């Protein structure tokens, strides 16, 4: 159980500078620490504005840190720039929420997938072969390479986005609400795809979602984030089914379940715990 973490965030603070003359800073992450081990999925659950997406973007190097550190295999990666940051691209990849805006509408699927490969200096023929492998891995027909994103459904586009993330065999993929825009049945197949990829390649996921049941299904460990602070963290079974922090409990009890009798019970419990507390 003591394998060294693949990635380790220590007391990470992120602030955004507002516009205007005074340039007031708003801190959105107030010292977040978490780690992910090789082959592990760390689930990050929270509501809009909680800062969960910012954590992912900090790992990807898309937002600067105010203080704290991010280590990848023991090495500091926060604040890396230029060539060294690009070298890290082979290790850390991302799947975004919206399958409609995360693919450039004017590039074919093949071009989109070739991009990271070519950026790492792969030859044309090798890249073609790898693209066929990738499309196969995400269960898309190989003819898909010559087509444009608009010819695909949301679920298929998300498969393309996953293929792009997998292209250069990363060690960690940040999945930011990767299935939230998908229909229920499509969502389920994409989740199973992510799990089977993990089994085969040993990739780690940071799985960011607002949906407790999806996070429970995908993650070994789960952290609950609320207004820029992680309020509870631990094994998925504990945090997502029998949480101790009041906010985690509120998240759990507000998510409706499909069994009408169980849902009636859950709603009763929600009201007894939180109805009086509202405003």
């Amino acid at each position: 159980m003591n394998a060294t973490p693949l990635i380790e965030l220590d007391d990470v603070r992120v602030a955004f500078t507002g516009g205007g003359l005074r340039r007031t800073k708003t801190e959105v992450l107030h010292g977040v620490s978490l780690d992910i081990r090789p082959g592990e999925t760390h689930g990050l659950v929270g509501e809009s504005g909680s800062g969960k997406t910012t954590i992912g973007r900090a790992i990807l190097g898309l937002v600067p840190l105010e203080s704290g550190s991010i280590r990848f295999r023991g090495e500091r990666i926060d604040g890396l720039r230029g060539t060294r940051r690009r070298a890290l691209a082979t290790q850390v990849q991302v799947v975004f929420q919206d399958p409609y805006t995360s693919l450039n509408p004017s590039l074919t699927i093949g071009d989109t997938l070739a991009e990271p490969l070519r950026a790492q200096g792969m030859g044309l023929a090798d890249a073609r072969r790898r693209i066929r492998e990738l499309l196969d891995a995400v269960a898309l027909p190989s003819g898909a390479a010559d087509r444009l994103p608009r010819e695909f459904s949301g679920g298929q586009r998300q498969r393309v986005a996953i293929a792009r993330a997998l292209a250069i065999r990363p060690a960690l993929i940040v999945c930011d609400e990767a299935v939230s825009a998908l229909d229920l049945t499509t969502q389920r197949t994409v989740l199973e795809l992510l799990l089977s990829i993990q089994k085969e390649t040993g990739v780690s996921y940071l799985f960011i979602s607002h949906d407790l049941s999806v996070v429970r299904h995908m993650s070994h460990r789960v952290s609950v984030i609320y207004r820029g602070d992680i309020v509870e963290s631990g094994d998925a079974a504990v945090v997502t089914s029998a949480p101790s922090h009041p906010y985690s409990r509120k998240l759990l009890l507000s998510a409706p379940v499909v069994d009408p009798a169980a849902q009636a019970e859950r709603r009763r419990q929600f009201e007894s715990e939180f109805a009086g507390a509202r405003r």
Partner: protein
Amino acid sequence: MFSRLLYGAQNTLGGAVIALAVALVIGIPTGLLAGYYGSWFDSVSSWVVNLVMALPAMVVLLASRAILGNTVWVLMIVMGVLVAPSFFRLVRGIVVTVRNELYVDAARVSGLRDWRIIGRHILIVVRGPIIVQISLVAGVAIGLQAGLEFLGIGSGSTPTWGAALNEAFQNIQRAPVLMVWPGVALGVTSAALVLFGSSVRDILEEGAGEPPRAVALPAEAPRDADSAPRGTLLSVRDLAVAYARDGGGEKEVVHGVSLDIDTGRILGLVGESGSGKSQTAFSVLGILPQGGRVSRGSITVGGTEIVGLPEKRHRGLRGRTIAYIPQEPMSNLDPSFTIGSQLVEPMRVTLGLGAAEARTKAIELLRMVEIADPERTFRSYPHQISGGMAQRVLIAGAMSCDPELVIADEPTTALDVTVQAEVLNLLRRLQSERGMGVLLVTHNLGVVADICDTVAVMEHGRIVETGTVAQVLTAPSHPYTQRLLASVLDESDVRPPWRDPSTEVTPA
């Protein structure tokens, strides 16, 4: 005359080409850089651009002629510099919006260099607008140049259209028709440029998808539908919705849907995207998007047939009997008016209340939807309140006319889950206090379990299963419903703790 025009074209158009080339070379790269990197370069270049734009072009051209000499080419280069800002602004504006697109982030994460991102992802997006702008600017350049020549300021020796105009003007008494030809040449060239630019753009962005054309066709007479049972508030029989196709003809998206809602009951209409659930709801409201129509079937609300009802009477029904709660609360509030005025206005129109009366009622409604400080919310603008609060405001608006039937289209989908629980509680309370019938469109089976009495499951424009919530959710009979329920993740789907793969014997 004709030969003069042809020969003059060479100089006129050549001049315009130079001006354009200069403008493009200066405008596009600076625009790209300013838009992509922002920071100081953006501030400085925007400042310079504003300065250049503030200069009166004609005066600068006249001045530069005085200083730099009397050739068309020099003047055209100066003109190029003067019109460069229009490209800068255009490119910068687009780049700023594209810069934060997810696919640009994805490219950055892929380890692409900035110049490759700009070249591949950003240039491709700006090229369409640039082409259109080029044709417009070319027209302007030709016009300006002709103007200069006409004033006799160009190089008098080179034959251009403007010079031709000038000469024609001097001879206007003797041969007035001479004026016409250079004028026609100028006009036709500018128009041709604009048309050419637009079509090049269209070819590049081919098939960007035109919206379906609106075709207003009357609905066919309802088939003899089995009459609705008594006590039924909403009765839909054999409803079909069709959309006009681009090439003519129609595509049916809802194929014969029947459902009933009794007074005081909540029906959940569930299905995945494209199942036709929203189309069904929009038909009841009479607000199908452009090109769509109810092509067959009957919808009665409280016994009144609403298919084929004139728009005016339908509107009256929407204001009083049927209310609508939309999916995106924020985009359904106008950001430039206060919450209060958006609640008061419809009440004054539909209920004929006076200003003070409507205000009192609006505040009462806000209190009813459990908004803590109704007076303050009344005075707030939409951006000052949260999404959950906005949805409460819209619910308050829907309640203002004491509706009998509420159509709620994914009312909690855009909300956080804790807010969703509160809004559902509110809906349930209002519904039972007022005895309304509710048609709740949702993709969330948990929401159905939470709040609905009956449920109808839609797939590909058909209802495949209906029944009480307990029946359908615990013992589904249709394979699609079974598949849908099997996709739901429940508490048993929990992942076991991580184990070090290197110490593990059999992989989990």
